């Protein structure tokens, strides 16, 4: 019962922050709302008993990616990035299409018979993730490192034009 209450609070918080991201007046505020949304998602992970994922979400998204985003905002806009809330003339069409998308997704989600896993989350879940990295998911593990290397080298090549 408390789980439902916690879920309700966390989902509302995440949704409000997500709404804030797209409607905020200044880009910096949008970034801060995004951080709030990341926290909300981390809370939802905790409700799913995926504690490692929740901590990873906070450490990587809130601790690293958010800083990257804010630095990128400062790099592209400079300080004092006060914009107006988008006075977009096509907002009517956008609203209609978004509503249609929402309806489609909602209907699809109700109709699909989601397979519910009855087994509880194992106690040594983290160890199993680690074992997975070396066993079943070895290739994605190594590919991830190559991907990170490529991102690093690419950014350095682009940014260090002296």
């Amino acid at each position, binding site marked *: 019962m408390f789980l439902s209450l916690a879920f309700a609070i966390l989902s509302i918080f995440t949704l409000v922050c997500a709404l804030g991201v797209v409607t905020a007046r200044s880009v*910096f505020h949008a970034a801060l709302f995004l951080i709030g949304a990341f926290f909300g998602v981390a809370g939802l992970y905790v409700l799913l008993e995926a504690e490692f994922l929740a901590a990873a979400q*906070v*450490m990587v998204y809130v*601790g690293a990616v958010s800083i990257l985003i804010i630095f990128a905002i400062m790099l592209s806009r400079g*300080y004092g990035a006060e914009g107006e809330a988008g006075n977009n003339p096509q907002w009517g069409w956008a609203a209609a299409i978004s509503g249609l998308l929402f309806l489609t997704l909602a209907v699809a989600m109700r109709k699909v018979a989601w397979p519910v896993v009855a087994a509880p989350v194992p106690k040594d879940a983290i160890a199993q993730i680690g074992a997975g990295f070396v066993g079943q998911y070895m290739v994605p593990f190594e590919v991830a490192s190559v991907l990170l290397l490529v991102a690093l080298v690419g950014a350095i090549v682009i940014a260090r034009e002296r």
Partner: protein
Amino acid sequence: MNDLIYNLAQGWERWISSFLPAWLVTLIDDLLIVVALLLLVILFVLAFIWLERKLVARLQDRTGPNRVGPYGLFQPIADTLKLLAKEVITPDGADKAVYNLAPVLVVFGPLMGLGVLPLGVHLIGADLNIGIFFVMALGSVSEIAVLMAGWSSNNKYALLGAFRAVAQLISYEVPMVLAVLAVVIMTGSMSMQSIVKAQNPLMFLIVMPTAFVVYFLSANAEMARTPFDLLEAESELIAGYHIEYSGMKFAMFYLAEYINLFVLGGVATTLFLGGWGGPFVDKVPLLGTFYFLAKDLLMVALWMWIRGTFPRFRIDHMLSFAWKVLVPVGVVLVLLTGFVVWLTNDYWLQLAILLPGNLVTLWVALELLGRDARKSGERDKRLALA
């Protein structure tokens, strides 16, 4: 009597469960633990404020505060009252929402870290499976708070200070995680109590001293204390990213630093000094709490000693030190620990390889540093004479 706090808690639990529903009991118990932790940390923070000023003063051959109470012991209380009574000025053009949110968030991270410190044999807020990871993840929340503070103050010095602060904080997060990784490999778990219990014959300080050194220095930089306190260098950036904060809002930044001291000292104690372990702990578990707090105090005193002794680093030196020295040493340590743990399961054989391995790594790193320092010293001399 041997396990006073735990037995008291059990007795209280039994009494209160007799007439309240289970969920309310959990709620009240958790609230009481949180309040107890808060009081404990505030007590220690007040002690640290006094200790810092006295210790640094003695190191600088002066007396330090000695007017307010015997030996100046009530000085922190006087400081708190002063900060409470100051006028809170919000600068023009500051972004009010973000400006007010920053001090709240900056103290949020360290306070959350309190919940997983193993204060005694059975005394821990929540022995999470991801214990140590939890502390590190929430430490990275403070970086956002720093950026918010710097940006919202509408002051270019604050913003500049915030950029430098964030660069420093993120650069030293990586070696910290690498040092923790070495410990986790040895333990096989991230839970704080497991890490303490794994240091059974010997503390990890003796098994991997270089990891301790890496962690110690990274934590020092994470707390932005001297010699890494460029961010609030009075002569350089006035007060860095919290220039425009006064009164209690400034007190939050100040408080966050000291709570962070306590938490990171507690983490260092857990990881490397054996936490609540010590002689006679199995017979008298109450001693465990005493050992933990004493070791935490020792770590904090070490950090304060370093503060009073060394000059400040320049920002490019600081960042180079993190990425070019600490990260490679951390990587070598992780690989070494992994190799040793794979090689043998015998504890003493592991120790026999790890300890020399650590010391060799430390020696090689210092040699390379020394050589580089000499080279750049000669280069500077050549440039000066040219």
